[in-house]
Structures are given as structure tokens and as C-alpha cells.
């Protein structure tokens, strides 16, 4: 996967910021995408392009269980979130959607918005093509890789 980074060097970016509750009367990705990250960065949706990545600090996705947060990001074209670590339910929701949530130390300090990144999920490597740097991350658990491969939990349970 190759795409541009949108970096939020901040801890505890919560699901209310990723998709405010006032939009939870909708559940389609294309509708939610219009409001992705609205309360933290109004310009996000105008900057983001298909294939991009969101980069953040610790505890990304804390707060509500709304899976709408994953859908809003995916609907906006985001292909993976790379953060120092994730809040539990958000991480679970990413896995269940086969959407990569990658944990990488200090990533929000290393990658600036606009950097072009190449991510190798299986190898656990991020190549920063803009800065010519490499970062390793803890490879995703086997269970998560399986989910990504089959396209999420609903496919997993039916193929089991």
C-alpha cells in the first residue's frame, strides 16, 4: 500500500472527533465520510485522497463503540491508521472490518503530513519514501491478518 500521511500528533483522538454523534443517524460510509475527523480538522475531508493513511499518537479511537468511526475513515479513502496504540473497541472494530490498525512507536513524531508512505502489512515495515526512512512495527496478530484477508468478521464466521 502506498499513500500520503495525514498526521495528528496527538493522544486520545476519540470517536466523537472521528465522527461526531450528530451524524450517527446515518450508517453508510459515503455519508459518514463527509464528516470524518470534522471536529478535529474541518479540512481533513478536502485533503484526503483514496489510499491515504491517518497517523496519530496514543490511544487512537477512545470513547464510544461506534463502528461508524472506522466506516467514516474508510469511506474517506483511508486505507490504514497507524498510531502508537489504539483504544480497545476501535481496534476490535478495525479488525472486524479487515481494516488495518497498525501500532508503531513514536510514529506521529516521525511522519509529517504529506509524507508518502509504503506499508508492508505482512513484513511489518513502513517505508517513508519522502524522508527515505524505514520504521518497523509489530506485525499484526495472525487473527487480524486473517480478518484482513477474508474481509472482516462476517466473512470469517461464515467460512469457519
Amino acid at each position, binding site marked *: 500500500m502506498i499513500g500520503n500521511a495525514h498526521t495528528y500528533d496527538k*493522544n*486520545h483522538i*476519540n470517536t*466523537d*472527533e472521528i465522527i*461526531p*454523534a*450528530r451524524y*450517527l*443517524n*446515518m*450508517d453508510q460510509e459515503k455519508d459518514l465520510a463527509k464528516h470524518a475527523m*470534522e*471536529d*478535529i480538522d474541518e479540512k481533513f475531508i478536502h485533503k484526503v485522497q483514496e489510499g491515504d493513511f491517518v497517523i496519530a499518537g*496514543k*490511544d487512537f479511537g*477512545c*470513547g*464510544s*463503540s*461506534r*463502528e*461508524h468511526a*472506522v466506516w467514516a475513515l474508510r469511506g474517506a479513502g483511508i486505507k490504514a491508521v497507524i498510531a502508537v*496504540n489504539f*483504544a*480497545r*473497541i476501535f481496534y*476490535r*472494530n478495525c479488525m*472486524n*472490518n479487515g481494516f488495518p490498525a497498525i501500532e508503531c512507536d513514536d510514529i506521529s513524531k516521525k511522519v509529517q503530513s504529506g509524507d508518502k508512505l509504503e506499508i508492508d502489512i505482512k513484513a511489518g515495515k513502513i517505508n517513508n519514501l519522502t524522508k527515505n526512512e524505514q520504521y518497523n512495527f509489530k506485525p499484526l496478530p495472525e*487473527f487480524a491478518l486473517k480478518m484482513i484477508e477474508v474481509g*472482516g*468478521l*462476517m466473512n470469517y*464466521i*461464515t467460512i469457519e
Partner: protein
Amino acid sequence: MGKTITEKILAKHSGQENLSPGDLINAEIDVIMCHDVTTTPALDMLKAKGVNKVCDPDKIVVIPDHFIPNKDIKSAEMVAKIRRWVKEQGISKFYDLGKHGVCHAILPEQGHVIPGQIIICGDSHTSTHGALGAFSTGIGSTDLAAALATGKLWFKVPHSMLFTITGSLQKGVYSKDVILDIIRMIGVDGALYKAMEFNGDFIKQLSVEARMTICNMAIEAGGKSGIINPDQKTIDYVKSKTDQDFELIYSDHDAEYEKKYEINVSDLEPIIAFPNLPSNGKKISEIKENIYLDQAYLGSCTNGRLEDLQIAAEILKDNKVNPDTRMIVVPATTEIWKQANKEGLIDIFMDAGATVSTPTCGACLGGHMGILAGGEKCISSTNRNFVGRMGSPKSEVYLASPATVASSAIEGKIADPRKYL
């Protein structure tokens, strides 16, 4: 080595003798609770997969609450879809308007929570039900769909953290202040992925309702669950609600905890969590500036139960809400509303100049019925004060106990409840 209550419940539900933190299991679920916001996408997923029958209608409790009564056409469509599904699947535990309320308040009140169960709901505050000795955790819509289809769900067995709480609270200080202080101490990710187990003399003194407030906010420290070992109060509470049999499961004395905290609450003061994180707690004596308030909100799955209304009413009785502040009281369930009415609490609130709404999650999550404008400040008995949580991203939410909400409503600024008691 012994096991924690969480490890034992998860083992029992996954047919294992022994489980350790980190083990991945597929567990049998006892109660699947569904509300409006996260359930409708799950129903679409089931349809897309051709799952026409839920695993077991008796395991499912359906309680629309977030945008109830319907706030707009889109939310009306969501609940209409749920209502059709409930009929089609023959689900009898359905709390529609007239029996409605905040799902985490209804579930135990109506006898659907018993010790030792596994309970899930597409809502982060599902941790509430750990107060009755159940393993109860929030999940997303895909998890919900999978559980509705199969009756099972995958979990990673969490590490447990033990909070031993001793001492007795001063007058005017409550379990809300205790949990806000714990979150202040460990941070909003201090218990990330962990089961937060609470014990100690102080917990034993608390009513079941006050315990729910503590477990409810485990998620605000990042916890997977909050849990309290059952005692006589738990047993009495559950038996007053249901005839279901239950087996009591307890942590072993030599259970292993990743971390242990010992906390004495005797000197604790009222705590107010400043914007924009629940961990931004300040002791009321540390607040030197006047923080003037546009709104005071009493309600939610955290603090909208009868006891909370009684505490606030005691302070508001023969007092008036400040003319520059709006006060909204939202009893968490229909039963609580009726009981509050019988006890004269509704009159006390209305005479003080507050308004009393029908049960709903409503403004707690910025849904409806009390949204804040830009620049407005609200003191709230709810659980989150994130940016834009109760309305405009430029509004501010201060989290506090029902007592502090009441005293602050009277003064029109953040005020110590202890002088009113």
C-alpha cells in the same frame, strides 16, 4: 495460582478449565443488548450475509435509547427498522416508547443482568453491568451482528487490575467523584484493554446503583470492563428483579493482577473533570476561578438513576436554578421517572425551575434535547467531555456528580454541593 472473576467467567463460557490473560477464546454470550445507533448497521450485515434468523431471541434485549423519542426522520427510520426486526424475530424483551429508557439503566432494573453472565452491547458503557458481577463489555456493530447470528463472540482474555478502595466518603461526595478521581490518577488509557476490578470496604458500603456508576466509567480509563465481586447486596438486588437462578463466581484470594492500587477515599472532595477529557479532574477546592454555566444536565447511564435524582432533589428543594442557567433532568428509565414522580422529586425539580425530560440518551452524546451552542458551558452528570460531545465543538462540558450538578445549577457556576447538605 488463583484466577480472577473475569478469567473464571470467560473460562466457563468457553468450555475451558483455565484461562490466562492473552488467550484468544470464542465465548458463549448470555445477553445481547441492542440499541438504535449500532444495531441498524448490524441488521444490514445480517441481511447481506443471508442470516434470516437470530441465534436465540431469548438472549436478545432491545432498547432503543440514543435518539429516542425519534429526533428526526433518519433516526425514526432506524427505529422503525428495528421494530420490524423485533416482530419478525419474535424478540419479546423489547422496550419501546412507554417502557423506554437508557439501555444500561433498564437492563439491570428489569432483571436482565445476573452475576456470572457474559453481556455484550454495541455501546462502550456496557461495562456498567460488571457492578453485578457479570463480565460485560462494549463492542461494535460487526461484533453485534456476529453474536446475533451465532450467539458467540471472540475475546482476548484481559489482564486484570485491582482497585482496593477503603474509607468512607464525606457528605456531598459520591461514587462519581471516586471514579473521576481514579481516572484522573491513571488517565484515559490507564486501564487500556484491562478488566478493572474494584473491591474493598468502601465498595461493600455502596448501593448497587452507586457501584454501577463506577463500573460504567471503566471505559473512560480505557478498560475492557469494570467488575465487582458479588455480595449480599448484589444477591438481594438481583433477586428483587428476577427469578432466574445464578451461580456466584468470585476472584480467588491468590488471583494474579497486573497492577494493584490501594485507595482511601475518606479525604476525597467533589471532583470536576474539565474539558476535554474525563481524566482532567480537579478537586473543587482547587478551582479558584468562577466558571459560569449555561446548562446543568442531570441524567445518563452514569448518573440518571433514582438515587442520583434523590441526591439532586435534596439540594434543589426550596432552592431555585440560577436564571442564567438552564437545568435539564433526564430520569434514565420510565420506571425511574414514575418513582421520582411518586416521591415528589419531579415537583422539586420543576419548582426549582428545571425541566424534566422523558428518558433518553439525548444530549449526553450531543444527540438532541439539550444541545449546546458554541461558547456555552455545561456541568453534567454524564461520562464524557470530549470536544463537541454535547453539541457545538466550541462548547465545553464539565463532568461531576449529581450533587455538584445541582449545587452548580443553583449558583449558575461550578459550586461545592457540601454547603447544601
